[in-house]
């Protein structure tokens, strides 16, 4: 066992650190135009998605380099990634299941944030029970017509395109097709939903006979559940909330405690740091159950921010840094499969317990 980095990893980390030191904006970005500009800058340095093949704008970097990139990115306080639904959820699925034509057409503009992607999984009657979706895809000449309603679609308000599952057959799991569609196509309307933080983080999408060409089916028709579960693994795993985010937050929490030590919170601050370190060391190991990973980081995120608020005491409510992080953390145990769904999956698929009667 060792925690050494080879020459290539050290050189890569140094390059990323230097580049971020030079380019991360002093003030926080405003509006999605500035965010798109930031993503273009990252892509220009081939840092938008280092794990992608070079032909699509990446560096063919191994997973360790992606973790190091995330650590440096968060340590530098760099901007939130407007392209993250595409970069972290769609791209891994495309690389696994997409055709050569799809990868070449979709990935490069995604990396440059010329196309920003939204996810369109949930429906009003299909939340935790995702396979219960009703939105339909009807076969037509040259493609599909999709109709129905999607909800909790992250970034649909600012995005250009979206991806999700649609019912193309009656079989609960084998009657679903993974489709990518244009949010500005005729028949699409997007209604923003204000979140508890006052932002329009997600939206409803209404679809009325929207045409989707065959070229925008990901995987085989009817195979969408299997294809999508690959993406779900990425969302639950390290990509969407990488250890880097927690390391940076834990360091800030420890610094805040050292500035104003409250003995009553000592152990909780230590536990937040231990949790972030555990997540980091865990990510360096072999790939693990995405459900275990998601359960760990969602609990860590809430506990860390609860501790920060308690430490700030009566000043917490006027501290936008920690309150924003806290409200963001509260979504973790819910989205991409609630903690309860993850415990079901972990118990039945990993621990080998019998199927639940619920």
């Amino acid at each position, binding site marked *: 066992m060792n925690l050494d980095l080879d020459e290539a990893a050290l050189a890569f980390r140094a390059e990323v650190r230097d580049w971020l030191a030079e380019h991360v904006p002093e003030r926080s970005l405003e509006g999605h135009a500035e965010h798109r500009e930031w993503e273009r800058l990252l892509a220009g340095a081939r840092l938008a998605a280092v794990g992608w093949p070079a032909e699509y704008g990446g560096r063919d970097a191994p997973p360790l380099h992606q973790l190091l990139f995330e650590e440096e990115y968060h340590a530098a306080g760099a901007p939130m990634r407007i392209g993250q639904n595409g970069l972290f959820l769609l791209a891994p699925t495309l690389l696994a299941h997409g055709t050569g034509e799809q990868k070449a057409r979709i990935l490069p503009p995604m990396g440059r944030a010329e196309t920003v992607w939204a996810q369109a999984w949930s429906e009003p009657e299909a939340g935790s029970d995702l396979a219960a979706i009703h939105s339909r895809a009807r076969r037509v000449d040259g493609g599909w017509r999709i109709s129905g309603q999607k909800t909790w679609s992250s970034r649909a308000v600012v995005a250009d395109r979206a991806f999700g599952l649609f019912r193309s057959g009656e079989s609960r799991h084998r009657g679903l097709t993974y489709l990518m569609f244009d949010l500005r196509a005729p028949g699409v309307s997007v209604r923003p939903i204000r979140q508890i933080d006052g932002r329009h983080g997600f939206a409803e999408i209404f679809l009325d006979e929207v045409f989707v060409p065959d070229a925008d089916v990901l995987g085989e028709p009817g195979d969408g559940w299997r294809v999508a579960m690959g993406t779900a693994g990425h969302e639950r795993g390290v990509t969407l909330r990488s250890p880097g985010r927690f390391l940076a937050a834990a360091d800030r929490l420890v610094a805040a405690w050292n500035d104003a030590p409250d003995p009553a919170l000592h152990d909780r601050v230590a536990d937040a740091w231990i949790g972030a370190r555990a997540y980091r*060391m865990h990510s360096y190991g072999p790939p693990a159950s995405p459900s275990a990973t998601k359960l760990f980081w969602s609990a860590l995120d809430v506990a860390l921010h609860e501790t920060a608020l308690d430490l700030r005491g009566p000043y917490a409510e006027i501290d936008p840094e920690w309150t924003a992080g806290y409200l963001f953390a509260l979504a973790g145990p819910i989205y991409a499969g609630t903690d309860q769904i993850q415990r079901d999956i972990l118990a039945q698929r990993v*621990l*080998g317990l*019998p199927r639940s009667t619920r």
Partner: protein
Amino acid sequence: MNLTPSPEQAQFAAALHDLLTESPVGVGPNRVGSERAGVWARLAGVGVTGLLVPERWGGSGGDPSDLVVAAEELGHHAVPGPLAESVAAVPALLRAIGGGAADEWLPELAAGRLIATLAAPPWLPLAADADLAGLVLHVTPASVRLARPGSCHPSMDASRQLFEVSPGELVATGVPAAHALDLGVLTCSAQLLGAARALLEASIRHAVNRVQFGHPIGTFQAVQHLLADVAVAIEFARPLLHAAAVSLTPPATTAAGDGPASGAAAGRAGVDVCPPRDVSAAKVACGDAAVLAARTALQIHGAIGYTEEHGLGRWLTKVRVLALAWGTPSQHRARIMTELARHR
């Protein structure tokens, strides 16, 4: 970058598992010293007692990552005895002291003919199982002395007894003992993780087999979710344990086999390490995971788990005892915060 046991280490753990499965260390509540001593001969036979002893004193000259892999298996089988003391801390201490002390005791320890234990306040105010030990030490930052065992107190863990000791004849002064004591903490952490895994496995077996309301209780979400939480705690404690072992491993550039790893953190190109901080993080996480696993296991077993005959209590009591030995969770959290403040 690699926190996974090597094929050789995995093989060693599997062999140890087989040995302990074939002839379980059936220690009941009787505290029979000869029975506990018999365990030692078997551990010596497979090379556990000489793991940290350099080859020139008859050991295998292993490193801390070899130690955690073996100690996890010892915890998995709830092996009794002063393991962290005799297999890890005392051999490392004697290496640091060197000279006649090393020549006299290291070969005996490696061969399993000698069992050692120690007291090292404030982490270890009492010496565990001094009745079994031919070598009892009293360790302070200033000195290492032979210790005279006094009153004996039976532990909540029926396989264990604690002894008050008084410092006696001087062995050495100015010994850098921190590294040796951290190896003891590391071993104790690995035992806790192994015990946690055993408790989870036993709970799953019981949940699959025990039928109530016409179904195995493992089909019930309330039971499944308790076990899922234990699995997460174990899954995320192990990387901290392995990282702590790396943290305590001297850099390959220094002369192998001699002296403590006081400069372990210096000059290594990679992820930041800090032995006291990293070892304490492992102890807290492994202890918390094991205590959760123990409480969950008892709840899932119900009354049968509360019986002496069932044997679950061996793991349950050992876990609760080891979680407080070699530094309490509070002491280790405090050490982490001290180290973080020092390096801010």
